[in-house]
């Protein structure tokens, strides 16, 4: 992929990020942080590649470590968000 495309994607994603949170209710700030945190663990992709490919043993172990850390985050982040959001379950009327 050429740099311009990547940069375009990056810039546009920044705009989306900007807009998407403008209207968030303050009560949801913490869950939102937890989710974004979980999402930013997409870095796991990098860890997976490092762990998957042969070539450097050190790199492999670093990758595996990164996968562990990111997994903690992913599972923990989503799970904790789910718990927080349970408070906001619409009451039954």
């Amino acid at each position, binding site marked *: 992929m050429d*740099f311009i495309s*990547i940069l375009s*994607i990056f810039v*546009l994603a920044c705009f*989306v*990020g*900007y807009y*998407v*949170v403008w209207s*968030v*209710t*303050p*009560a*949801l*700030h*913490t*869950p*939102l*942080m937890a*989710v*974004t*945190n*979980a*999402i*930013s*663990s*997409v*870095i*796991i*992709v*990098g*860890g997976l*590649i*490092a*762990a*998957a*490919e*042969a*070539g450097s043993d050190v*790199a*492999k172990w*670093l*990758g*595996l*470590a*990164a*996968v*562990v*850390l*990111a*997994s*903690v985050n*992913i*599972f*923990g*982040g989503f*799970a*904790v968000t789910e718990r927080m*959001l349970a408070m*906001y379950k619409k009451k039954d009327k």
Partner: protein
Amino acid sequence: MLAYLIAGVFFILALRGLSSPATSRAGNRNGMIGMAIAVITTLVTHDIANIVEIGIAIFLGGIIGVTIARKIAMTAMPELVAGFHSLVGLAAVLVGWAAYLNPGAFGLLTGDGSIGAVSKIEMGLGIAIGAITFSGSVIAFAKLSGKMSGSPIMLPGRHVINLGVLGAIIVLTALFALAGPGDTMPLIVAVTVLAFVIGFLLIIPIGGADMPVVVSMLNSYSGWAAAAMGFTLGNTAMIITGALVGSSGAILSYIMCRAMNRSFISVIAGGFGADDSGGGKGEPREQRPYKQGSAADAAYMLEQAERVIIIPGYGMAVAQAQHALREMADVLEAKGVEVKYAIHPVAGRMPGHMNVLLAEASVEYDKVFELEDINSEFAQADVAFIIGANDVVNPAAKTDKSSPIYGMPVFDVDKAKQVFFIKRSMGGVGYAGVDNDVFYMDQTMMLLSDAKKMVEEIVKAMD
């Protein structure tokens, strides 16, 4: 990879869902789906030499993550999030190093078998930001969980030190990019170490009150780190997500600062600009911690309530908030919430003071109750909404023989699930001039503002 784009879209939808309580759970699901797509795509599109190890790694991480998430107390959420951030930061550092050590796997080798300069800059940035995120988050975690004093720690000459370290990181990264294949190792090590240090230095001087903003800012950093790695790897999912998290985190910290009436710059600049004075304005007479809420928070909780009891006092009269209050009750009732008014015999400054004002606002008499008739209902109430009352809800009247109000019957607001307390500042007192334990209860949220203004904002925030 189309799949990465799709994952990115799911992430966008996830954040979008989180912007309103009604869609928040669906949003969280979308986040999970996006993550699953990203992970599976990666596994499918690479030849996997170590599938077993990877499986174990994911499983291990998953177990730990879920366990922590289950066990943690709800009140420890902010520190948990900070802790999680540190993991993302560290993961970014590790991935960066892995890429540095095994560039071939990431397709970073140029013709001559070395790594391209652009890739090295991206890599250096990723590692540096990741390291800052890591050490910063560790400090934030320690401060929030009370493992470290929440008060700002001011190093002498910290501004100079910080600037120096930051400059060094930039210079070293540039050198790293330009250096020949054999000379890079010490440079990248130095960058990594200095980044860890600067993360530490940046957060140390920030006080506990500003920590939520810091956490959100670190969140943003972790996004930028992921984006930087995404650039290195040319991975759409990482770029989109990183940019998304980066910008949304930054905006979120900005919004939070605004809500707290703090200057964004002074908070994020942390070590650079933190003013040396302690946080909070209008000192409470005793420095006890209390929760402050916004009109939007109150609006949300009120809408979700089934039974709300409003306790008006002299402050409502001073603010002439009765009309706005009636309007708020109307809106709530239209949403099926039961609203009652609890009038204390000596609320206000003359007998029947509250009655005059509520009648003016045409509040029906059958919604207005005297102390004896309603006091037992607080246990069933979801929200006790105290607007400009103070002495009449002060538990000291029941417990503290030395209090000037001892012996007066008061409302048992502490029995309500949630208490909102509108007054103008923590400094102000009621007629009797005494502090009030209700401010500092767990379930109390202080709404500090003129009563009329606050209620109007609550009405606006409901729809």
